[in-house]
């Protein structure tokens, strides 16, 4: 691999794309921490080259027939060789490009957003670390490599959530995200071990090959699929591990845009797509995935209906959209999930970046506060937010409409109409909470306090933050029209069972109707003249509490932690520590001292003690040898 990698343009590009950010990370951490501009330059240069390489790879392999796999041996120990390499196929190339594009734009944007921050260099170092881990993860040819980078992505996420570590809530949120995703990852790892035991290696192509059913029984496939799905639940913040994501909004907003909406949390869905043929061997597991996706989607939507924090709304919507993707894939349509993943990455990053501009300008996360201070006068972000929100709500002609319609189509193909109804309800709720926010920002109620002087542009670097918004908005607008091209692109993906998505002529109308229903309801409650801007949920106090408290999931975890973990488990371990381990070590120490005291008596130079010792030893030796 080393010898001839220069002769393979694809391999060279893959190595460049994935390893330059690591170089940038190391350089920044070691050399240029004192020079913020240089650090940012390094990081952006690295990600630019990565982006170019990614686009080059995507363009070069657009009509790829068979997946390209390059592996070299990384670790050799006896008979065990751990490979390291790259797997280029449609799934990984598309994801690589999405990650590269979003990372690039967010890093540019951060030039403005993070300007003047004391940890500017550190920020860019972590961003590079994240880019490196994420890109390597997408191109992994084996599950082990994928798992390693999966964890590295988690690490980068932890570092970036807790970026402002002097804030207590930020460190808490980082810890929470790390621990909660780790729960899922334990299951993921167990699943991998199960696969390893049966297949003997973790090669993704081998796991996806049709022959896998002959080598693993159905039960084991189901169990390992469910365990691996545990990792997806953790990373993509699905039910019941969904509460870390809203808290992760403590990090800088560009981080939220990059990690917690567009790329990192999508890694879970990406993994689903990666192992889609493997998962689809087990109908039972797919059923459970469908249920989990649906529950997460609906729960998160209801939570988003009552929060006042602009970033939290988008965080909940992320969970909900990820639930949508998982529903689409679990319904059997690989293409639906990946398409929505792609479009979602664009418009969700856009939403967060716009929210970042608002927060940066008004120094408030509260949407009513932003509205009161004249949020709508920031023209570019407002327009971009509306475009992205329309895409999120699934209104034509924006990208979200097309991808959501494909998912709904896949749901309609299922025998049970419950899923389709849930999907349409989800679409309705999405449109409602999205446009609730839009109308609140567009139509401030107490416009008297809207002062001309203290808004907007004096923070500087505004244009740097503006360009990524415009690019992403353009992508959001036009992406939907490339639906056919993308569908053709995914046809080339190996090993995906061809499930023709049934064409339902009424589907676009149902999708538009549910979305429009949500928008109209939001208009009646928040938009029209004289509306009191109080949602119907907020009028019912218990429901409002339920939603605002995130269905008491956090409370439940807290109680569980207090009663079971702290009360029982850690108590037991504590006792064990104190009594058994401490006692044992202390006993050893005391015993040694006592023995020393005793032995020292023999060394006082007394002839008779020595004689006594000789006798005792001889007697003991006699006993030992004769009995």
């Amino acid at each position: 691999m080393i010898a001839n990698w220069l002769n393979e343009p694809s391999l060279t590009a893959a190595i460049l794309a994935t390893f330059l950010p690591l170089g940038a990370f190391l350089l920044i951490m070691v050399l240029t921490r004192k020079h913020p501009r240089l650090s940012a330059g390094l990081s952006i240069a690295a990600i630019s080259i990565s982006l170019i390489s990614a686009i080059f790879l995507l363009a070069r392999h657009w009509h790829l027939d068979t997946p390209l796999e390059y592996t070299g041996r990384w670790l050799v120990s006896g008979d065990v060789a751990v490979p390291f390499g790259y797997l280029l196929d449609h799934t990984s190339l598309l994801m690589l490009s999405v990650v590269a594009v979003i990372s690039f734009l967010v890093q540019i944007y951060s030039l403005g957003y993070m300007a003047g921050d004391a940890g500017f260099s550190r920020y860019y170092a972590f961003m590079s670390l994240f880019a490196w881990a994420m890109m390597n993860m997408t191109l992994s040819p084996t599950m082990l490599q994928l798992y390693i980078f999966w964890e590295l992505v988690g690490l980068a996420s932890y570092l970036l959530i807790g970026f402002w570590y002097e804030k207590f809530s930020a460190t808490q949120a980082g810890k929470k995200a790390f621990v909660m995703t780790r729960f899922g990852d334990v299951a993921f790892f167990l699943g991998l071990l199960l696969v390893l035991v049966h297949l003997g290696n973790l090669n993704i192509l081998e796991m996806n090959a049709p022959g896998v059913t002959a080598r693993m029984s159905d039960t084991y496939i189901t169990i390992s699929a469910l365990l691996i799905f545990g990792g997806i639940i953790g990373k993509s913040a699905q039910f019941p591990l969904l509460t870390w994501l809203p808290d992760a909004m403590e990090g800088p907003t560009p981080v939220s845009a990059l990690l917690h909406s567009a790329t990192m949390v999508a890694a879970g869905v990406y993994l689903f797509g990666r192992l889609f043929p493997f998962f689809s061997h087990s109908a039972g597991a797919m059923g459970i995935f469908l249920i989990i996706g649906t529950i997460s989607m609906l729960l998160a939507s209801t939570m988003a209906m009552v929060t006042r924090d602009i970033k939290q709304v988008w965080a909940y919507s992320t969970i909900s959209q990820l639930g949508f993707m998982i529903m689409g894939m679990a319904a059997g349509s690989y293409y639906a999930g990946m398409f929505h993943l792609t479009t979602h990455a664009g418009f969700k990053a856009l939403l967060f970046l716009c929210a970042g501009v608002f927060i940066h300008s008004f120094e408030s996360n509260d949407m009513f506060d932003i509205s009161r201070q004249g949020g709508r006068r920031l023209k570019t972000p407002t327009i971009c937010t509306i475009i992205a929100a329309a895409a999120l709500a699934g209104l034509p002609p924006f990208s979200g409409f097309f991808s959501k319609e494909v998912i709904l189509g896949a749901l309609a193909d299922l025998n049970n109409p419950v899923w389709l109804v849930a999907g349409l309800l989800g679409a309705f709720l999405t449109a409602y909470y999205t446009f609730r926010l839009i109308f609140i920002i567009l139509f401030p109620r107490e416009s008297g306090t809207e002062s001309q002087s203290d808004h907007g542009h004096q923070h500087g670097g505004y244009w740097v933050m503006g360009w990524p918004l415009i690019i992403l908005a353009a992508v959001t607008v036009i992406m939907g029209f490339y639906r056919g091209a993308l569908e053709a692109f995914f046809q080339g993906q190996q090993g995906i069972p061809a499930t023709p998505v049934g064409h339902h002529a009424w589907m676009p109308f149902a999708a538009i109707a549910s979305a429009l229903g949500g928008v109209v309801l939001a208009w009646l409650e928040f938009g029209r003249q004289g509306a009191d801007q109080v949602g119907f949920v907020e009028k019912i106090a218990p429901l409002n509490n339920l939603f605002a408290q995130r269905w008491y999931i956090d409370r439940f975890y807290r109680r569980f932690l207090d009663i079971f973990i702290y009360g029982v488990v850690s108590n037991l371990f504590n006792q064990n520590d104190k009594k058994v381990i401490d006692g044992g070590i202390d006993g050893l120490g005391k015993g040694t001292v006592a023995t020393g005291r005793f032995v020292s008596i023999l060394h006082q130079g007394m002839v008779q003690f020595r004689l006594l010792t000789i006798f005792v030893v001889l007697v003991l030796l006699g006993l030992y040898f004769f009995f």
Partner: protein
Amino acid sequence: MIVPFNHVLALAGLLFLMGIFCVVVRRSLIMILLGVEVMLNAAAIILVGASLLWHNLDGQAIVLFVFAIAAAEVSVGLAFIVWAYRRTGSVDPENYNILK
């Protein structure tokens, strides 16, 4: 053999233990030497008893040698003790600890 061999063994063991006790406990070099002699004689008793048990006179012959060696040992030992007493003015083994 009139006396059972077990009794001979018990007597010898008892004597040997007494010898040890004497050697370890008494605060006089002369008594220590005496203890050593007692132990030596305990061993000799076993040899005599064994030679009677197996009708083999080798054991008794060895005992004769043991007597000779014991006599020599006592004379040398006593000479040492006298010399040590002259050097230190005491026969208490507790004082012989300059090697400590």
